[in-house]
């Protein structure tokens, strides 16, 4: 008879996995914040947009078909092709790079040297815009996303643990894939930002736009690069979450799951996103498992934030965030 401890272990492992998925979203935020001091409210919508575009390309959907049909009275929906997943991902990435370019050209180029709150506000505008734009472009129905990632219970783990405890652990294959991808991403990004010239320039821009300009760092280049990277991360997050729940509007709300992760890990730290994600994932799952039933459940949302809050009280810049420099 399996006991509570074994259950707790299973919950713990699943918490870790959930945390990785949160971290994937959080990474996008961190990248942009690190490179420009912008808190990108639109990150969630970007993930949605990336996933929508990916499905659209794979399924050969005609973009703006609804609009076209409404205006011209035509009846077009599909190109009638089926694009292989990998090609579609590459094409989607191209779209995201274009988006990054456009965002920089049309918005942030005009907002150099403004305070963070104003840049934040611009991303609000962007989020509104893209929410409408994505829907017009690809339609608001639910789309199934299948790029061939495995999904469902991992049998070997189930069987092994059954052998050990008489109770098989449930670990989702998709989560395992996500963990691997997240690990690779984090390592790559850390190396990039900490040890390369562009990475250094990126951090310099975040500190002081004007000074960065004055030493000849091209804000345009850095920002397009970073928004493209963030677009890429959004695409990865979109694929993971889209595979889980279908691609639809609610995908943009996953951003909310990333916020406590961000603040726990620190807005500026790439490893922080991953560690924060793990702590939040494990914390909320264990809390729901142990205390949840006593107080009526559905505690995860607030508990994640409270947990992060508790950490912050001790470390106001998050676990790995850059220390807030306070001098007079």
């Amino acid at each position, binding site marked *: 008879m399996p006991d509570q401890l074994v*259950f707790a272990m*299973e*919950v713990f492992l*699943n*918490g870790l*996995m*959930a945390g990785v998925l949160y971290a994937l979203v959080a990474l996008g935020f961190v990248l942009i914040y690190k490179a420009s001091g912008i808190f990108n409210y639109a990150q969630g919508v970007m993930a949605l947009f990336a996933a929508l575009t990916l499905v659209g390309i794979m399924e050969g959907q005609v973009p703006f*078909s*609804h609009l076209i*049909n409404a205006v011209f*009275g035509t*009846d077009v*929906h599909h190109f009638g092709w089926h694009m292989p997943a990998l090609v579609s991902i590459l094409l989607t990435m191209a779209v995201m790079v274009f988006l990054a370019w456009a965002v920089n050209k049309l918005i942030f180029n005009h907002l150099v040297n403004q305070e963070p709150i104003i840049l934040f506000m611009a991303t609000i505008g962007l989020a509104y815009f893209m929410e409408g734009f994505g*829907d017009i472009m690809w*339609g*608001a*129905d*639910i789309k*199934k996303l*299948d790029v061939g990632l495995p*999904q*469902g*219970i991992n049998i070997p783990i189930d069987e092994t643990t059954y052998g050990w405890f008489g109770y098989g652990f*449930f670990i*989702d294959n998709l989560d395992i894939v996500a963990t691997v991808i997240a690990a690779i991403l984090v390592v790559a990004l850390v190396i990039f930002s900490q040890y390369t010239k562009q990475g250094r320039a990126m951090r310099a821009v975040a500190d002081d736009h004007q000074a960065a300009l004055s030493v000849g760092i091209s804000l345009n280049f850095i920002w397009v690069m970073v928004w493209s990277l963030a677009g890429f991360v959004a695409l990865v997050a979109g694929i993971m*979450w889209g595979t*889980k*729940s*279908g691609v*639809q*509007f*609610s*995908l943009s*709300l*996953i951003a909310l*799951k990333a916020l406590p992760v961000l603040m726990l890990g620190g807005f500026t730290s790439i490893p922080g996103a991953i560690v924060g994600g793990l702590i939040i994932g494990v914390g*909320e*799952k264990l809390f*729901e*498992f142990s205390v*949840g039933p006593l107080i*009526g*459940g*559905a505690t*995860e*949302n607030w508990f994640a934030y409270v947990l992060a809050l508790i950490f912050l009280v001790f470390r106001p810049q998050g676990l790995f965030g850059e220390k807030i420099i306070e001098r007079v």
Partner: protein
Amino acid sequence: EVTFSALSYRTGPYAANGIPFADGYQDYFTLLNERDGGIGGEKINLVECETGYNTEKGVECYESTKGTGALVYQPLSTGITYQLIPKATADSIPIHSMGYGRTSAKNGEVFRWVFNYPANYWDGASIAIKHLLDINGGDLSGKKVALVYHNSAYGKEPIRTLEELAKKHGYELSLLPVDHPGQEQKSQWLQIRRDRPDYVLMWGWGVMNQVAIQEAVNIRFPMENFIGIWWSGSENDVKPAGDGANGYKALTFHNFGTNYPLFDDLKTHVIDKGLAAGAGDQVGTVLYNRGLYAAMLAAEAAKTAQGIHGVTAITPAQMRDGMEALEMTEAKMAELGLPNFGPEFSVSCQNHGGNGFGAVGQWDAAAGEWKMITDYMQSDQDVLQPLIEADSAAYASENGITAGCN
């Protein structure tokens, strides 16, 4: 000319479900206009208003369309329904919350302007249990039933009924709330995996449905033991989970598919003429059929009202009389081209909720369609009636309403 309003949502988190319903609702009226020249000779004017499933926008929509003389409101959201109940009552405009909204509105003596036929959430809960009784030879004692629900007014609706029924039938009920939007349900499903309930019921909406079904597939919960309310039983909910969702069950109060004479008319008069609502790609889906059904009931009530009052351009108040006198018989439905599409029921002043008939459908992943697997069955009136009495009485006293017909 008679005006109907459609408070629809084609945007926002529930757009994917709002669209087919709105399309069905609209197409039916278009059909009447095209084929019959409207209702009783009066052309139908349908004003659509986008709510995004948002209560404030719902209010704005209501206020902006009520001036058009709309005969009846179908808000398609429990939240908006609650908002509109006092307003519509004050304005003397009927509301039809079909299969959602405030359950005790069934008591027409208190809720004079609100109708929720043919079935409500408590009916749904009872029918689900009835189905479980049926497949268990009438005995549920010692069985474990878990309810996975949207953590909102809507999701909480069935709890009281399920608790009452648990007392009566001796099953053990556990509750698993899921917060909006419901993208992350690991905890709930791990718990189900540990507790191994015999059956899982679900009151979900939007992405919560897809994730729940996917998670159920992932933990290999037997799908035939997983039953959703009628709002958790559309193609949208099962398709993302692929073949694994095969066998998933959901309640319904109307039939599936396009195999009815009416759909032929629809094709010739609406679709082929390019008049279909939206993208025109939803015809025959579960929620489309539900929208169609709702429009049909509205049209029938309007016809009844025209009959009662002897005028064709009826007012909302007259519409109410029509709804209160509505009688849906098999003969009538066959005549409309929808034989055996929905349950028979009749409405009266005391009973605004119909007779509480519903059925169980099951998803056939291979065929990619929903199939009815039971006949229409009635909910447990002995249990529900007292609950409805109590709840409506409370509302009446809180708001100083004297119950009664007239």
